[in-house]
């Protein structure tokens, strides 16, 4: 009887302590803290990656899109003007193609002159 009583007094506390100190709960807590640590790191590194990707996209791609858009607008305008004035549409891209080549040629000439003397 006495043994039963002494064992029954600590039953609740013993049960709760076995539960809280059991290896399963211990492992679960450690896994939760690891998961939290990893999640925080992942969030930070995703943030960093998003920042790098975002600023690189802004510098490399956005001016390109803007300039290509302007080029397309200019083409459309010329096509409209060509059809208005009645000049054949075939002639137009060639004329302005050579203008672009002139811009590049002038740049190339200037750069070549500078490079030649370096």
């Amino acid at each position, binding site marked *: 009887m006495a043994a039963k009583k002494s064992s029954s007094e600590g039953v609740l506390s013993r049960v709760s302590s076995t539960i809280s100190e059991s290896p399963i709960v211990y492992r679960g807590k450690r896994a939760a803290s690891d998961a939290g640590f990893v999640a925080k790191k992942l969030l930070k590194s995703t943030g960093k990656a998003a920042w790098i990707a975002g600023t690189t996209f802004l510098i*490399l791609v956005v001016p*390109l899109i803007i300039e*290509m858009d302007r*080029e397309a607008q200019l083409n459309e305008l010329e096509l409209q003007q060509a059809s208005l004035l009645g000049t054949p549409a075939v002639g137009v891209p060639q004329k302005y193609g050579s203008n672009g080549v002139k811009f590049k040629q002038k740049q190339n000439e200037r750069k070549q*002159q500078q490079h030649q*003397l370096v």
Partner: protein
Amino acid sequence: MATLVPPPTTPPPAPAAEAVKPEKVDYMDLPCPIPYEEIHREAMMSLKPDHFEGMRVDFTKGLNQKFSLSHSIVMGPMEVPSQSAETIKIPTANYEFGANFIDPKLMLFGRVYTDGRLSARVKCDLSENLIMKANAQLTNEPHMSHGMFNFDYKGTDYRTQFQLGNGNLLGASYIQSVTPHLSLGGEVFWTGQHRKSGIGYAARYNTDKMVASGQIANTGMVALSYVQKVSEKVSLASDLMYNYMSRDVTASFGYDYILRQCRLRGKIDSNGCTSAFLEERLNMGLNFLLSAEIDHKKKDYKFGFGLTVGE
């Protein structure tokens, strides 16, 4: 017995074969190669525009067919080399006055800066095949002035260059066209001041659509580059620089869009550096420049804008 489709007649192969006959290479009539120092020219022009930080205004006024004056104002932070890892930037402002005389046979360029520097360049055609170039820079600081003479001789399919500079610098280079597309060259140099000598080799292969070039020097530098012209307006370039003495590798990849109103060059590097350079033609003789450079590793951000007035 389903209806059989009659076999298609084979088209005559003769015209195609005749059109594609390769031209016989005339080894006595090869084109003149690119000068040795410009072997990486396409890659340098596409990948290395002159990025700057701050504001830059250039004004060029032609007084004559041949003579022009130029004024230039540059304001912005300049990097000062420092011992610590951080870059120190000091805001400076500079005015530069220059005069250019351009003649088919003689070209003279002179520049004077507000910080006391004077630079001069001369290019003179002594005869049809012999070109002399001279280059000098004088500064206020002692021992920082230097000058250099170059003599270039252009043959039918080769070029040679002899270089003479202060500080006992001697150099010579030779480049030869081996096939209509391939040219090979080498150079040697000797500096008396630092008692160093070096030898290097270079090769360049170009077709209408692409240029591939490589250079190796005994100072440990290996530079390879490849430029592909994807269309009339677009070309892509890539470049690898490897120093086998200091085990330093840098690879970069960039694009070059030449549109009617603008020229846009963008580049990304293996050092975590991305940059872009835009030159936009606002009007006849008026160009607007924008330059951006972001270094993610060192967290160094440089942005600049500028205006170029005059032809």
